[in-house]
């Protein structure tokens, strides 16, 4: 082991120009941390004043030149990089981060739940896809891509196994609230539609508001998470219009931008779905 270590250290040292320096310990001074930790200093052979000046000016010229070039390369490289190349690089980084996140993802890891006393005032942040008036009795949620496809009325959803959770809702803007949700696990809906074998499910889920003005895409893993609900109640009362009545998504596995309100359709698909905020420069995955 210690031999390996020495080889590594020699390797590291070999990368360095030593300029014939020799290691010397600091004066034996119990008050000096350098002495206590056996720090060494590296000094060249003595040389004349003029020679030291000459060597230093060579080193300075080289150092500042290389450093300056590297700096300019960085600054102008970034500046001259075409906008498309830059945004492709950053989008691909989001996708790379997504793959890394998925390697470490486990559906068994749950977001913490809170006691009812910790529930905070709900915050309303946007009406995309909610502009039209709708009547709850006319509303249907179309489900396609699993089983034979179907459409659900809100009573049918309410008749499914009821799940409650008090979790932290996180907005991509950086604020968070604690919300008491009541609804149906998406995995329960999938089972009701005949999606019996979770391994056979398509990779993605596309969800849209009835007017199709707001739309999100989810990966199947996060949709199947036990804390991903189709919620019809919020903080003990039926969902209000502004929070997405009659049925919305609620999940601590994604930011609020993914928790679509007033769901009109759910489509299971192997094609990566469009996503409103991803098209506006945000991370498609947005997974927490």
């Amino acid at each position, binding site marked *: 082991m210690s031999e390996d270590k020495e080889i590594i250290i020699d390797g590291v040292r070999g990368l360095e120009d030593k300029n014939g*320096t020799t290691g010397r310990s600091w004066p034996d001074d119990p008050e000096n941390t*350098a002495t206590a*930790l056996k*720090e060494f200093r590296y000094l060249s052979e003595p*040389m004349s004043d003029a*020679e030291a000046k000459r060597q*230093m000016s060579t080193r300075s010229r080289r150092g500042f030149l290389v450093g300056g070039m590297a700096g300019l390369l960085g600054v102008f490289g970034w500046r001259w990089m075409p906008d498309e190349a830059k945004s492709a690089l950053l989008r691909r980084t989001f996708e790379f981060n997504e793959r890394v996140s998925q390697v470490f993802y486990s559906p068994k*890891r749950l977001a913490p739940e809170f006691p009812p006393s910790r529930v905070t005032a709900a915050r309303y942040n946007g009406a995309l896809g909610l502009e039209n008036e709708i009547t709850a009795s006319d509303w249907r949620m179309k489900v396609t891509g699993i089983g034979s496809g179907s459409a659900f009325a809100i009573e049918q959803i309410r008749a499914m196994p009821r799940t409650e959770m008090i979790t932290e809702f996180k907005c991509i803007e950086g604020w968070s609230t604690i919300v008491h949700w009541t609804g149906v696990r998406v995995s329960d809906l999938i089972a009701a539609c005949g999606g019996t074998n979770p391994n056979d499910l398509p990779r993605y889920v596309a969800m849209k508001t009835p007017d199709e003005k707001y739309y999100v895409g989810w990966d199947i893993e996060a949709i199947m998470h036990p804390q991903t609900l189709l919620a019809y109640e919020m903080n003990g009362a039926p969902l209000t219009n502004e929070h997405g009545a009659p049925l919305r998504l609620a999940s601590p596995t994604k930011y609020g931008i993914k928790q679509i309100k007033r769901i009109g359709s759910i489509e299971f698909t192997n094609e990566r779905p469009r996503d409103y905020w991803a098209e506006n420069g945000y991370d498609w995955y947005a997974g927490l």
Partner: protein
Amino acid sequence: MDKQLEKKHPLAVRWMHWINFPLLALMIWSGLLIYWANPVYPLRLGTYEVFHFFPPWFYETLGIPFRLAEGLQLHFFFMWLFSINGVAYIIYTFLSGEWRALLPVPASFRRAPLVALHDAHLVKTKPPQGKYNDAQRIAYTGVILMGAGSVITGLSIYKPTQIGWLTSLLGGYEWARWEHFWLMVLFVLFFGVHVFQVAMAGWANFRSMITGYDVVDAEKPTTPKEETVEV
């Protein structure tokens, strides 16, 4: 008089130091683009709000508003480079033995105030010095711990469900965001003090972080006891 060139900063450390400078700046900049979307932290004395991070003129002057998406893109790109550079530095420091010049010992905390008093010209006694003095050892180790803290608090607000145990350990999501923000403020303060100290120390010291070398007066020929280098 005879001179000697003293090798002060290894090539790897110089590169990592200078690479870290723009990376940290970009992390702070993109962090500000993100923070603007929910700018909630004040500096309070008791109940009196001394300063709010940040006043409107600050955002307007720097052109920060409405750039959240861009901020997230940059933050989650440069986080990799910032972290890799930091981890590489820590590994290098341990393998090369540089840690002997950088880590404080318990007594350093007792001796560090002497450095501050000496710097302020209040005390004549020169504090014991290796490559760095005890105050520098504490500062340069502390800033690495701050970097580690930024990565850890950052991870805990990046994946608060998947790494929920870490987020809980840090006091929950909102506290972790608060900690991540204040570490940034500490970095800015460190930067200010660091630049001031470098300016006070003068050109030769600054140049040594570029070339790696400093010029020192040659030792009296009697003293040097040569030793083999061991780590």
